[in-house]
């Protein structure tokens, strides 16, 4: 990366997202400690560090295993698409197998050091010209060598030797709890100045994997925990959400919402790379707003990708047909792609990763999510917020328009959790509300927020029929609609208010 900005150079790892939270990768030619509880994906991370080096940078790597035999690692990593055996044959990957030999009984009978380990590691590094090295794991060294003083001295000797060899390395270590001592043996801090922590937390009964750079001595990195997911076909993907948050550019280009009057209310349409939240109770016209958004795009040869988490394909297509739009034809022509999924099929991180890859492969101009609030129940509040930030910044980064819907739990007024969490993230908010007037339910719509533009502040009446959505005149002489308690002003009160302003 930029050597002028960071006092210590770094090595780009090639692990998606990790290089952005580390501001450019792992400290070059240093050993970093990768600490985590059992099942926190340390071995996957280590393997991926080497695999990415080979695949993306043509940097050979050495895997020193103290625990799992190489055969197990080869087999376990095959699923991620890493053909370790082939790399070994090409001289790009080498194992140093220090896994315990169960056949041999071993006793300690005098003084010793880990000279053999160091000699083998040096041999492997030189043989394949390795630039990366992983030691997995320190805890397993202790099962073979119980004296922590020896392990500490020897690990120091090894990391010093690795530095001289010009190898950037990772040493994995176990911790017994998610928050507490960095690692269990108390020697890790002596071994390395750089600590990365992997966590696998239970939060609101949901598993959430995070990664945190605890320290990088002498160089900078992003602070805090970042969620990551393990993709079955590519390994670890770190989601550097807040690192991205405020870096989007904005444009003055406007696109149509698919409804001329709504465009007017927004001051000339939505901004092209903006994200709009349409919030309302069930039946207020959210899915119709999405359908209009798609049809408005299709009329201008823009491609639209719809993620539906509430309704089935059949339902969606039937609804659209009811409003005069043929989704089948649009899909056939390539202008539309509809992806229906149950929110519960995956965690939020996995949803985000798969949505991103769908977006990247379809390359739409518009992305709609109906509804975003259906995903609320999949993760914790924090995880949901991160998910929305991740999706929003991704969409804006790709210069697309996004329309998300949120369902409010109450019919009249109220706000959804989605709104509370993401209203500051989205650029515009449309509120769709029921209005009870003289015993009749009517629908209203207002533009609550339109970042960077003037917009209509009135609450307008909406009617829905077989031709779609019709936005009518503003509600007059009624207040309290958004609060869910409309109050009708009397003629005398109106006259008095008018007088106030006429003077």
């Amino acid at each position, binding site marked *: 990366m930029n050597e002028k900005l960071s006092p210590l150079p770094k090595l780009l790892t090639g692990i998606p997202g990790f290089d952005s939270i580390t501001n450019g990768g792992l400290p070059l030619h240093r050993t970093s400690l990768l600490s985590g509880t059992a099942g926190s994906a340390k071995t996957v991370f280590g393997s991926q560090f080497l695999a990415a080096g080979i695949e993306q940078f043509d940097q050979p790597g050495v895997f020193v295993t103290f625990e799992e035999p190489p055969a197990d690692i080869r087999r376990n990593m095959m699923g991620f698409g890493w053909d370790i055996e082939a790399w070994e044959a090409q001289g790009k990957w080498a194992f140093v197998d220090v896994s315990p*030999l169960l*056949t*041999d009984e*071993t*006793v300690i009978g005098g003084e*010793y050091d880990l000279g*053999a380990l160091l*000699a083998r590691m040096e041999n492997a590094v030189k043989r394949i010209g390795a630039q990366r090295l992983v030691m997995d794991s320190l805890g397993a060294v202790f099962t073979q060598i119980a004296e922590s003083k020896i392990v500490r001295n020897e690990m120091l000797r090894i990391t010093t030797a690795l530095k001289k060899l010009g190898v950037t390395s990772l040493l994995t270590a176990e911790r017994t709890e998610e928050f507490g001592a960095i690692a269990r043996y108390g020697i890790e801090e002596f071994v390395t100045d750089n600590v990365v922590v992997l966590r696998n937390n239970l939060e609101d009964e949901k598993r959430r994997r995070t990664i945190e750079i605890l320290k990088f001595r002498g160089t900078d990195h992003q602070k805090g925990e970042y969620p990551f997911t393990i993709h079955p076909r590519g390994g670890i993907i770190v989601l550097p959400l807040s690192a991205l948050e405020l870096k989007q550019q904005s444009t003055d280009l406007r696109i149509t919402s698919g409804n001329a009057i709504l465009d007017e209310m927004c001051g000339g349409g939505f901004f092209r790379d903006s994200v709009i939240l349409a919030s309302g109770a069930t039946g207020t016209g959210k899915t119709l707003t999405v359908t209009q958004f798609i049809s408005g795009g299709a009329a201008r040869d823009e491609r639209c990708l719809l993620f539906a988490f509430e309704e089935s394909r059949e339902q969606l297509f039937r609804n659209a047909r009811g409003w005069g739009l043929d989704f089948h034809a649009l899909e056939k022509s390539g202008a539309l792609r509809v992806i229906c999924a149950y929110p519960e099929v995956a965690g939020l991180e996995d949803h985000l990763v798969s949505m991103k890859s769908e977006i990247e492969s379809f390359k739409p101009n518009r992305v709609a999510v109906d509804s975003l609030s259906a995903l609320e129940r999949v993760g914790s509040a924090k995880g949901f917020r991160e998910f929305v930030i991740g999706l929003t910044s991704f969409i804006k980064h790709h210069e697309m328009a996004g329309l998300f819907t949120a369902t409010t739990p109450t019919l009249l007024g109220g706000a959804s959790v989605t709104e509370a969490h993401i209203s500051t993230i989205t650029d515009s908010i449309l509120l769709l509300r029921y209005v009870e007037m003289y015993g009749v339910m009517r629908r209203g719509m207002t533009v609550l927020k339109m970042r960077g533009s003037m917009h209509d502040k009135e609450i307008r009446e909406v009617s829905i029929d077989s031709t779609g959505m019709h936005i009518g005149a503003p509600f007059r002489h009624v207040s309290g609609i958004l609060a869910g308690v409309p109050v009708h002003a009397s003629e005398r009160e109106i006259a008095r208010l008018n007088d106030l302003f006429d003077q």
Partner: protein
Amino acid sequence: MVTLVFELFVTGRTRQSQRAIQNLRAYFADFPDVEYELTIIDVIEQPDRAEERHILATPTLIRLVPPPPLRIIGDLSDREIVRQTIGLLSSADDSSNHSHQGEDSSHE
């Protein structure tokens, strides 16, 4: 009589390596009738041999014959451990921690 076969892995000519060799030879000096074969392997010169045997620490002594294989990590200065592990017993002491069979021939 079975000839005992040993491999001793050392790292270069360090003092620990020298001590291990001396300690092993001194130990067998007490059993002049025992035949043994000792191969000394320097892991710096022959890292592949260390690779084959999964050697982690040096010095490491492996007794290959008779089976099962036994390992002693360290410079063999702990004579009691060496005695128990290699299984050569003085006539005064015939209790062994190990259950190897067919070793009587190597005993005096």
